[in-house]
């Protein structure tokens, strides 16, 4: 039932992963793979664009938790951007805004990296 896809772009040093569809326990693996691939290429600056993400489950949230430490210890980060209100609510409820940088647009997130 759940359709999910990712799309990878680069903006200078920053890697942008666009999420599309439903991110749950079954599709989380897909995102994990995408991020692992970046790490294997020593790319640690990641912006995740949530604009087209319709739903996220706890397993989906777990993906960001799994990688954030690796990114930060390598002078990188995972910055989250352009969430739909329902998706943001889930992040907010859990307290993610305290631990992750969440931006309303992708550009803001990229700019933050370049500062």
């Amino acid at each position, binding site marked *: *039932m759940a359709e999910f896809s990712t799309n990878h772009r680069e903006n200078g040093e920053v890697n942008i992963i666009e999420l599309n569809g439903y991110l749950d*326990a079954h599709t989380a693996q897909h995102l994990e793979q995408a991020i692992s691939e970046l790490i294997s290429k020593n790319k640690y600056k990641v912006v995740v664009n949530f604009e087209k993400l319709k*739903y996220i489950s*706890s*397993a989906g*949230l*777990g*993906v960001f*938790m*799994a990688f954030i*430490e690796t990114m930060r210890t390598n002078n990188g980060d995972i910055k989250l951007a352009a969430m739909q209100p*329902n998706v943001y609510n889930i992040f907010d*409820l*859990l*307290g*993610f805004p*305290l*631990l992750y940088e969440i931006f309303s647009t992708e550009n803001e997130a990229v700019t933050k990296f370049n500062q």
Partner: protein
Amino acid sequence: MELSSKITQQPRIQFLLIAVAGLFLFRMMFTANTLLLSFTSDLLILAVFYYSIINLNQLQTQKRFSPITLVKSLMFLSLTGIVVYKFFDGVHSLFGIDQIEFLSANAIFVSLVTYVFDLVVILILAYIFLVFRHLFFLKQRRNVKTYFTALWVFLVLSSMSTLLDKYQNWEFIKMAFTANAVILMVINSLKISWIAFLSKKEKKQLLLYSMALIVLFALSITVINSQNAVTKVLNNFSLSLNYFNLLLNVYGIIYFSFLFVITLFHLPTAEAFDRKAAEVSSFQVLSRLINQVLDFKELGDTITDLAIKVCNADAAWIILLDDETKTPVAPKNIGFVTADKIQSVLLSQKNKQTENEISFLNVAVCNDLETKNEQFCYAAAAPLKSHKKINGYLFVAKKAEVPFDEEDRNALETFSDYSSIAVENAKLLQASIEKERLERELDVAREMQQKILPQYIPQVEHLEISSVFVPAFEVGGDYYDFFELPGNKFGFVIADVSGKGISAAFIMAELRGIIESLVNTYTKPKDILVQTNSIIERTLGKKNFITAVFGVFDFTEEKLYLSRAGHTSMLLVRNNGMKEILPNGVGLGLTHTEKFETFLEEYSLELKENDIFVLYTDGVTEAKDENLRDFGVTTLKKIIEESQSESVTMIAQNVMRQVSLFSRGTPQHDDITLLLFKWKNNLEKQHG
């Protein structure tokens, strides 16, 4: 089968014995020197001959014959015939007695010996005839029985008509029947349909045997027709039998001459036929495997073994696309390194259009592919498809400097189709075994969860309490509990472990243990959650977290203390108003720095009469309808507001009814937990 053949065998041997005895008595009493007597004698011989065939056939039905063994037995029989004639000739001249001198002292002995010889001749002829019959009917598809019956009738007729020739001088009748018989011999000799099924080696053998048999039959004709003692004895015994013998030998010569020529023509295509036969038998093995194989490795071995056979290759291996590393599975006669090199070149040639086709590679032109000992010249890759999806590739490679031809290509194509079904079956089987394992695991997880959750709702003086728990099939990791705390306090927890199944159930068990021990030392919700966060770090994986609310009702102070670690809000209904309470707090396991503690808010509230507190897990608000819309917190609030005057149990029931109505089209994907409290301080007042 065996029993019935035994039963029918018995009387037939008797018939044979009766016929043999009858013939003997007849010969002792009469000398066959008139047409009638000769004819009667011949009829008796025919009976002996017929029952010999029947009995010999019965002896053979237990065996299956191959054409080559039949031809060999013919060789043996005709050779035996010649030896027997020669032997009897020798014996006869040794005694120096002519058959006509019947009155000598050892007449009885001589006639006995002669009779036994005659019988042996009949037996050999019967056997030869029987073998011809088997050869004729071997692998015949159409009904050709008429041809053979006609031959056999004309053979008998022409044999019998020798009597008319002798006694009436009607030679033309004999000639006419004989001509018919010979024509039928030719027709029947053209009806050989088993040569094509022989292997090349067998065909070569057959050429040799045919030549030998032609010589043997010709030899036997000269022996019969030479004017020696044997001929005299046989002619004296029965002219017809001798003529039959002659005709049978002629049939043999005609038959094997044709056979020789036909085999000769078949020889060039013999190899192709051999290959087809090998293919067919490989496919038979494989189609049996399709339904049998439990062990994936065994299946792979069989596929590569057979692939080498069907397309004349030297090496074969499989790769599965599920496997990221594309490691060769079940490689035969090839090393991993070479296989890897060849497959990477072959796969790099594939694009969207050609991925469904077999691709070929001339390895010899790729210099970098040559490795010591393993010099392959040609390689091919066939996709393993199921439901139009490519699951993997079957590779074959050969050392000979002849490229794979059209035949190999077709064989590989058909073979890879068969293989992909087998591979798909094996995968499905593995998946269903895995599914069964998961289901058992989930049973365990559900059982754990049931045992972890409170078995009954505690009776507390100032609180009306209700709880609802509906587990999801996959075990969602919801947890709640109540604690009687020292100092006239009552604690509760509601939590949701991320993840599902047995791993969630384990974390729940751990969480319960941690909280149960912490409530002995701590009574502040914040302290309990902060301690839990630091202890549970060891249990939680990087990807897992827990959302939780810990609350404490202080009956003395009439206050509620509460902290929220990333969990859903608490709803408060007071004075017909609805309030969503959402103190700051990060989920357990999200961070193990001091941030968790600094951000975790200590919320407290003065309790008022009939305050209703509702806690829930996201299984309630994220229950889905058929359009995948959420039940949502707004709907939840509305239902609670509408039924706030009722008991907490009734409120819980209303909520659950609405949730199940809303989500009836879709399966419940997460645990649902509802926890309700109503503050009742002035019990006396209310009852009074």
